[in-house]
């Protein structure tokens, strides 16, 4: 079974975000970059499927040379091959398009992504790739089983109020949600091997017009200091808090 996993390098979720002087991007100097957390679930799932069904796992990213680090993290977990699509997309349409064109040359049985990249928070690229390749999709998956011989798969996806079960054919695009699996840590031999591994670089086909234009980035509005109740007994504090929420904030 051939699996392609789409991964993205993103700022660590704990980092402070500062907007740059041009108001169009964040300040990137000194940012700690990591593999997008949801993409770790996608990589892990691909490795488990390879253990079950054989085949190879190719990880792919669209990004600058620095994104090689993210590919190497995935290689260290156990991926076989890594591809970097080099280019400067302007929006998700262009990202989805360029990735779809690069995936096409590999004709995989399965494409795994994260449910969302935690920088732009769009949750869009998986569905775009599926649409551009005319494949079925299962997004926000917390369970996946595939039958490569029968070209069929089923998944459970997280929806409001519960889990939706889906049946679909392969090849397909599946986007990973937390809960799909527990990602493994890279092994020491894995890390050594990943360092030496050649990363294939393709140039991005951005042959689609962007549909979105960034006007500006703004910081969130500051919250003003709140009213804090101290030195009251638990019972008094609870009653006073409810009174404030009712009379003062009119929230209950």
């Amino acid at each position, binding site marked *: 079974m051939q699996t392609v996993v789409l991964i993205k390098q993103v*700022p660590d*979720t704990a980092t*402070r*975000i500062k*907007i740059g002087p041009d108001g169009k991007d964040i300040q990137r100097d000194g940012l700690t970059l990591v593999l997008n*957390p949801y993409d770790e679930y996608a990589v892990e799932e691909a490795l488990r499927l390879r253990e079950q069904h054989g085949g190879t796992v190719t990880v792919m990213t669209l990004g600058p040379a620095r994104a090689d680090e993210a590919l190497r993290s995935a290689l260290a977990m156990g991926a076989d091959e890594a591809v970097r699509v080099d280019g400067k997309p302007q929006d*998700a349409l262009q990202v*989805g398009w360029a990735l779809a064109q690069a995936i096409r040359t590999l004709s995989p049985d399965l494409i795994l992504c994260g449910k969302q990249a935690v*920088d732009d*928070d*769009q*949750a*869009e690229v998986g*569905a*775009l790739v599926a*649409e*551009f390749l*005319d494949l*079925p*999709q299962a997004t926000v998956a917390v369970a996946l089983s595939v039958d490569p011989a029968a070209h069929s798969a089923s998944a*459970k996806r*997280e*929806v*409001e109020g*519960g*889990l*939706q*079960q*889906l*049946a*679909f054919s392969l090849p397909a695009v599946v986007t990973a949600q937390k809960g799909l699996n527990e990602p493994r840590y890279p092994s020491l031999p894995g890390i050594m091997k990943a360092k030496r591994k050649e990363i294939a670089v393709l140039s991005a086909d951005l042959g689609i*017009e962007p*549909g*979105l*234009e*960034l*006007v500006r*980035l*703004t*910081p*969130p509005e500051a*919250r003003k200091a*709140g*009213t*804090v*109740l*101290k*030195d009251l007994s*638990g*019972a008094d*504090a*609870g*009653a006073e*808090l*409810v009174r*404030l*929420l009712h009379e003062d*904030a009119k*929230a*209950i």
Partner: protein
Amino acid sequence: MHLVVLEGDDRLRKISHEAIGAARALGGPVAAVAVGKDARKLAEEASHLGVSQVLTVEGPEVSAYAVRAWVRAVETAVAKSGATLVLFGATSQGKEVAARLAGRLKAGLAADVTAISQDGGALVFRRPIYAGKAFAEVRLISKVGIATLRPNAFSPAAKDAEAAQIEPLAVSFEAKDLDGKATGFEAGSGGQVELTEAEIIVSGGRGLKGPENFHLIEELAKELGAAVGASRAVVDAGWRPHTEQVGQTGKTVSPALYIACGISGAVQHMAGMSSSKLIVAINKDPEAPIFQVADYGVVGDAIEVLPAMTEAVRQLRA
């Protein structure tokens, strides 16, 4: 023309009321489309919300949810209505149909929008990025634009005296549109209020000390008609299901009132709730970061404060 894609089972989801409200606030005529076995019921409800027309798509192809069938239906509705802006709720269904439709129409998509403003002639969509640590203001520059709207961010549409016309829409489905059909559903824990749409959320963290104390959270939630949320620490510990997790790797919520009990306020947790209108923190540690965003706080033991709150709310309601 703006087109709102409706969502709901027996009843129209709250987010669909909000999406119609947002579309009407932009001015100009608003059409809506309902797809699936409940399409008529949803259309009926929406027809009283000040839209000019409601399209319905019914039939065996959409008897159960399938993302590509929904995309085909909405694509047809866009062509029929001549809409240049398509609005969805940012629900799990809305997000995936919208994203796939964006590919189909080669359209720009503004995801998880919390505000829309007019700048000259153009619409500017405001959306949180980096989990709410910044906002991006974007313009849609494609012929048709698409946006998904975050629940609780827009005012629901007011009822209109006149009922709009409901019109069945014929859609030519292809066999592949049904590849990926829903085959079943497992209901999540409890019949409680859906987290992402809740007006009030009572959330518990590791400060609750153990799963046995979460009944204190549940009781207050019940008294307030609220949903129950949780921090990742308690989800990872197996005290609560993942469906209740609020934060960067859980749900993003923006209720009118968020009550955080025994939650420290790690950035990844705040990422999921910082757009709540009013934030209340109950924490033993006065230095806990959650107090930096709290409008009201209690420095104290949640296990003592919660029952007193529940009792006080009960008296208020009596």
